């Protein structure tokens, strides 16, 4: 028996466990910094279970139990349960439309009683990862076929669609991180290029004056035609292709983007996106605003207060930071939602550039370790799953940190293992420890 335990322990990748623990501990420390008040008995506050950091500590304990449980479970369980759990996840998400609880304007929570709420969209990340891994590791799958690519996309984006319907744009975005996995597994590269080009076009639309951009696009098209004039002479279809792209681009720039910003997005969302590129959005053009105005309701004018305060907090840290518990932005509660989405600001302020980079290196270490682990799997299921975990964590870190430093519009995406919140912490713990469990059996081929 003891020998088996030893064997078990030998198979676990302790580096990942260590990084996991350090990041989790840092998170509790950060929440403590945010909630700290002078004249307070720290020990009592930690054990009382009333403050956010003590709650997070309790969640951490639950996670430890859960992790042990996962490590002791059978790895075949996960391949076997993959598709079933996905269906269950989708069911839960649909269920929110019926019995969902409205928290901060998004109806995406299922009340569990005792003050706890469950967000199925969080859990669904695990189920989707498993399902995608299961599908992509199917023995006779030819991923070069459009059909299988579409099926994979549907698996990945199904929960995303439901999330958007629940008004949780942030969570929906996360599911786009599965494209990284699919790219690794053979999704044609041009899809990514088209995606990037589209993003570039949207950003350009926001920044550049519409007429100038139209002229620039026309010039690019003209130059393309000129450069390819010989090929164009040979085949008319190439010319039609270029003209088609040109019309598409101008159409997007002229009509699609303004339409989306004015009619699909809420006023605050458009404002946030404009704020990111340093522009001001005129909410008067927004449909939802117009609707509210016509109903004679007050229209709160959103501003970039959050980002501004967040940037001040991080910027005021300078190289070495202001010191533990000495950040004025944190102590004065100037940054809204600081213990959840803006938790990175407390690190930036207290520990400065040094601390921030060091902290990011923890994530980088974790991510590269997971990718390294992925590549050592014999089983395709484990490999795909590992990429899913890496992609999800990477996407969360990037979006969250970029939004606090003003490189991405504000969307409610937590920083993995650090932001306060039980759902998110449990989800990432399960994600990582299933991976570790699968990794322990890396020499087996799991189906």
């Amino acid at each position: 028996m003891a020998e088996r335990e030893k064997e078990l322990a030998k198979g676990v990748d302790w580096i990942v466990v260590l990084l996991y623990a350090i990041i989790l501990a840092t998170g509790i420390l950060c929440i403590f910094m945010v909630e700290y008040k002078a004249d307070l008995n720290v020990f009592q506050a930690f054990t009382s279970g009333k403050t956010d950091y003590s709650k997070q500590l309790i969640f951490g304990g639950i996670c430890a139990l859960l992790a042990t449980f996962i490590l002791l479970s059978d790895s075949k369980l996960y391949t076997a349960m993959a598709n079933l759990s996905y269906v269950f996840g989708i069911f839960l998400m649909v269920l929110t439309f019926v019995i969902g609880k409205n928290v901060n304007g998004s109806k995406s929570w299922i009340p569990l009683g005792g003050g706890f709420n469950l967000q199925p969209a969080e859990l669904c990340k695990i189920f989707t990862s498993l399902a995608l891994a299961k599908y992509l590791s199917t023995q006779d799958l030819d991923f070069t076929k459009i059909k299988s690519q579409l099926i994979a996309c549907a698996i990945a984006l199904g929960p995303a669609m439901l999330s958007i319907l629940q008004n949780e744009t942030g969570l929906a975005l996360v599911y786009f991180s599965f494209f990284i996995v699919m790219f690794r597994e053979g999704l044609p590269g041009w899809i990514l290029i088209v995606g990037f080009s589209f993003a570039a076009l949207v950003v350009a639309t926001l920044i550049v004056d519409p007429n100038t951009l139209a002229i620039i696009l026309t010039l690019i098209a003209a130059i393309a035609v000129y450069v390819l004039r010989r090929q164009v002479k040979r085949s008319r279809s190439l010319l039609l292709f270029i003209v088609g792209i040109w019309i598409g681009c101008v159409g997007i720039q002229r009509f699609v983007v303004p339409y989306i910003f004015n009619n699909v997005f809420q006023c605050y969302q458009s404002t946030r996106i404009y704020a990111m590129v340093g522009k001001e959005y005129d909410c008067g053009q927004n449909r939802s605003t117009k609707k509210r105005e016509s109903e004679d309701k007050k229209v709160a004018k959103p501003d970039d207060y959050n980002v501004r305060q967040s940037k001040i907090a991080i910027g005021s840290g300078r190289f070495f930071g202001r010191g533990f518990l000495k950040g004025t932005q944190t102590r004065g509660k100037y940054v809204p939602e600081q213990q959840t989405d803006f938790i990175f600001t407390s690190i930036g302020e207290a520990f400065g550039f040094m601390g921030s980079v060091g902290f990011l290196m923890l994530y980088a270490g974790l991510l590269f370790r997971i990718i390294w682990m992925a590549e050592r799997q014999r089983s395709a299921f484990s490999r795909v799953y590992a990429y899913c975990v890496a992609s999800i964590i990477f996407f969360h870190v990037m979006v969250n940190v970029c939004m606090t430093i003003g490189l991405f519009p504000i969307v409610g995406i937590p920083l993995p293992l650090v932001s306060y919140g039980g759902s998110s912490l449990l989800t990432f713990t399960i994600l990582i420890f299933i991976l570790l469990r699968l990794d322990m059996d890396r020499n087996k081929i799991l189906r």
Partner: protein
Amino acid sequence: MALEENQGRSKIVQLIFAVLFLVIIAQLLHLQIFSKDYRLQAENNAIYRKVVYPDRGIIFDRKGKPILENTVMYDLMVTPYDARKGMDTLTLCKILDIDTAEYHKRMVTAIIKNGNYKAYAFESLLSPEKYARLNESLYKFPGFVLQERSVRSYPFPVASNILGRLGEVDSSFLAKNADKGYQPGDFTGVTGLERTYESVLMGRRGVERYLRDNKGRMQGHWEKGIYDTAAIAGKNLYSTMDIELQQLGEKLFQHKIGAAVAINPKTGGILAMITAPTYDPNLLSPANRRQNYGKLILDTARPMWNRAIQGQYPPGSTFKPLNALVALDEGLITPSFGVDCGGGYSGCGRFIRCTHSGGGHAANLRTALANSCNTYFSITYRMEVDNPKYGGVKKGYMAWKKYMNGFGLGVKLGVDLPSEQMGNIPDTSGYNKDFNGHWNSCSNVTLGIGQDRMTATPIQLANAAALIANGGYYYTPHLVDHIQDEDEDDKKLMQSYRTKHKALDIDQAAFDAVHKGMADVASEGTAAMINIPGVKFAAKTGTAQNPHGKNHAVFIAYAPVDNPRIAIAVVVENSGYGATWAGPIAGYMLEKYINDSLTESSKAGVESFSKVDLVPDAIKHWYYVKDSLKQVKLTQQASKGVDSIPPATLFRQPEQPKTLFDPEAEPNRREADGGDSNPYAPNANKNAIVLPDERKIKDKNIRRTTH
């Protein structure tokens, strides 16, 4: 499976990860290392700099009574956010005597001006009664607190122009005193001692830094207060003033215009400085200032103008002792020098009348001073200026002017009050211009009797009296004897008041002769009617002609004769004889100071003298017209219904007696009703043109009866 061909894509994925991490690090570099102003912005957000004002120094009189001190008043502050739940609005409104509509109005104002989370002065400077009632039921008003505020208070409602007052600093003051740590909204001494000794009285401000949260609430001291500096209280001033003497002087000057200064000749310390009219300093306290300041500053009698150091009057005959001193010092006369005066001096073509015409009233210097002979001093003046020693009238005049400056006339004495005037001892250039360069001692002979273009401030006259009493020297008159715990800077500030001035080396014999003459003035001369029980004093009366109407009454004196402890100068504008109108004021003040109390008969004399009204008619007329205009305006507003504050009944009420008699048949009856006692009486403005004359007659009647 496509495993092998996709192996390279792992590298691409890792590359994407790495690149995006680098992007984040680049942005962190930009925010944390290259942008310098985020730290500043964070501190502007969170650190609240609070200036702690120390108590201003207290001013004591020479007997140790506080005459300008601090009292604590209370402001009722409200934090709107906290004042919602469990608020007993009705009780609060009852205590403050407001209605709930006013309560809500003030709350809304507080929120608009200061936001929900910051304290706002719901009511400033509470009366003691309101404070007491609020204090005991404050637990019923969450969000309300009573905040202390230190306010200047004047235990004695006198000497307002001397003590001075505080005023808010303006931008030009801030620019001038950039290095002294004032900030907009601060108060500083703007007049009087408050201004002169501002640097001593203000103390040193402390600065406390607080951590402030996003709602503007204080979270305790920044960095546990290591950057805070403590406030150091202002130093107290120990004044030379005798507050009882000051009170007596101000009482005597009621209904009069003029000034008086009493000096301790031994030290130069000012015992009392009266300027009339004056005002109650409490009228300009923070709570009342807005209401009264305009009225006071526009008053034609200028109650905020310190005549004692700024009023410039011809000294008249009070100058004669100084004239005698010059002549004696130059060796032009001896004390036994006499002239034969037949009632005036005509040596210069025009006739300068003398009070006396009897033979021998100017037989020697002593009698000439006692009888204030104009002839005598016209002659001595001409001798001084025409002194052959100097060769020419202009050089002689300049030598004479030098004497005057040595006496402290025509120069600023340097009293420790702002805006002192220098009086006027004219230069030769003025005479050169007026007389085309051809003038002689006759041209300005009346300088010898303190007229012509000569003017002096009351403090200069008092100083001259002190100089005579001292036998040749004086200390610069000053109000502050010493500063509490004087350090080097304070000593430097006080240095000029502790130096003996003896510009002229006049022989003691000359002073003895003048002393005798001035003692005779008091005992048998022009001031013989003034008696101080048990004290021998020396004096000189003056009745100064001036272009503004009736003569100014001027009087200088010192007492006791053999060991002078007080020297005094009194000027009563446009009143008449010096001995009649200025003399008694000086007499009562000398008595009070030397005997430390007044006899019963003196007390009665003070009472009746203080009721005498010597305000010139022109000024009374001005007040009258001003009141009438105000009434006209008020009645017009009332008839139009524009003015909501005084209800129409205010004007209707006095109309009733009008119907009780026939104005045609009894034209004087209206006058007897005393329209001027009620400023809003409607009959007063109805006859605005006729009434002033009637009032004049009335005033004359009063004066006659009080004589």
